């Protein structure tokens, strides 16, 4: 009974918390992006982050891309054989990867490897007074730490997606042409004839938006780790990291649907 009486109050508190969090995240993004116009741009930090997000994600991305392409080709081959349309294998694999699987799978790799690590790093920096130290050294935290990380994710993810697509198409070639003995010409020509600039554009727009979403959510969760009154220290950072990973994946997939709906 008491629970029922307290329900409206709990819902109210929860709603206020959500609205406050969204507001804080929006302010955080605004402040970070406003530093685009502040001099000097932290180029060294940007290159370091580009290496972290891009180059160091490559090994796992190459493996995932190869197997994703092979699995997609295997499934399509089995279906297309039944309808006598195996010539469409190249188109089917390429379109699935470029429009959908490439951006989403590359984004999931970045969430798992980079989003979690960035959130934890920023959260620990907050707990160890490193932000206070930067402020006291007259170094703007948004310009020096946040902007390079955000830009690195936005720049690196489309490149990672492109590499994932290429490796995936290669994986499809291995299954379709080398294993099942289909025509290499049909696979490649089908791909070239079907894929349009709009398909590529959809993949690029998705990966740009995903890069922004992933790093924004990771950074803001780490940055506000101290606001969690019930959890502090390592437990607070662990909770913030889990929240960032889950939330990034959900928001990323929601935007995948929204962008797909608008562009198809």
């Amino acid at each position, binding site marked *: 009974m008491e629970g029922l009486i307290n329900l409206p109050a709990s819902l109210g508190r929860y709603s206020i918390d959500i609205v406050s969090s969204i507001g804080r995240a929006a302010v955080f993004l605004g402040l970070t992006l406003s530093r685009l116009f502040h001099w000097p741009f932290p180029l060294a930090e940007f290159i370091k982050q580009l290496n972290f997000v891009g180059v160091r994600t490559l090994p796992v991305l190459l493996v995932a891309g190869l197997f994703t392409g092979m699995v997609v080709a295997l499934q399509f081959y089995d279906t297309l054989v039944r309808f006598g349309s195996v010539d469409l294998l190249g188109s089917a694999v390429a379109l699935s990867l470029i429009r959908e699987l490439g951006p989403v799978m590359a984004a999931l790799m970045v969430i798992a490897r980079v989003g979690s690590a960035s959130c934890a790093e920023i959260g620990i920096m907050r707990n160890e007074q490193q932000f*206070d*130290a930067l402020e006291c050294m007259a170094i703007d935290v948004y310009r020096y730490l946040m902007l390079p990380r955000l830009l690195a994710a936005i720049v690196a993810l489309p490149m990672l997606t492109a590499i994932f697509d290429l490796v995936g198409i290669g994986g499809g070639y291995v299954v379709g042409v080398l294993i099942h003995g289909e025509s290499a010409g049909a696979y490649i020509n089908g791909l070239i004839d079907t894929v349009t600039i709009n398909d590529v554009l959809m993949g690029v727009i998705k990966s740009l938006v995903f890069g922004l979403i992933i790093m924004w959510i990771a950074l803001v969760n780490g940055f506000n780790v101290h606001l969690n009154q019930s959890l502090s220290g390592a437990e607070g950072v662990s909770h913030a990291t889990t929240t960032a990973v889950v939330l990034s994946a959900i928001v990323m997939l929601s935007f995948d649907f929204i962008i797909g709906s608008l562009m198809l």
Partner: protein
Amino acid sequence: MNAHYGDRQVLHNVNFSVAEGEIMVVMGGSGSGKSTLLKHLLGLQKPSSGSISLLNQNIAELGRKQMMALRRSMGVAFQGGALLSSMSVGDNVKLPLRENTELDENTIDIMARLKLELMNLAGFEDLMPAELSGGMLKRAGLARAVIMDPKILFFDEPSAGLDPVTSVELDELILQLRAALNMTMVIVTHELESAFKIADRITVLFDGEVAAMGTVEEIKNSSDVRIQNLINRKPRDKVVDADAYLQRLTAGGT
């Protein structure tokens, strides 16, 4: 100045000044408001009323850019060093110069080596913060705090967590620094021996209020019972309200 956390007042009419070249030690027990006071002095928090004047500027009224400019004249050494964990000790020490000056890298290298030498950390510049001991972290943090030759240095708990020998070494270092660079220093500590050794004057905080202020001798000879309890490490007397205690035990029931 006064400061609040929500409805709770944590600093009450705190009022003191520090002369140029002076070492002012802010002392007090846990929960006395030392750390809160330091955050306000650094401009990391704004007072709910009153003003804080640093180098003749009221920091409560400064805009972000003016505050940044003022901070280039200040140095802060944090309790745990607060070195950026992703950078080597050398890069940490060089960071303020790289970000706030247009000096060339050779000059920055020389200045960083000078300060590290002063802190007995020569040869450690390539190590990462995780590879340093507690005392070394504090000294590296101090090297970074003084790299810009600030006019005023803030130091949070220099002796906390250090063994007695390292603690004495750090006190000596602080005195050497003042002698060499003639810096004004505000040092927050709860270590009595350290405070008595390095302070020109001491401000004692008690429950967010200034309980006493004066030279080391004046503080030692204070007739205030709270100060004498602090100096003699005597725990505070607990006033037990029998009714409130009973109510707590019975969770408000009878």
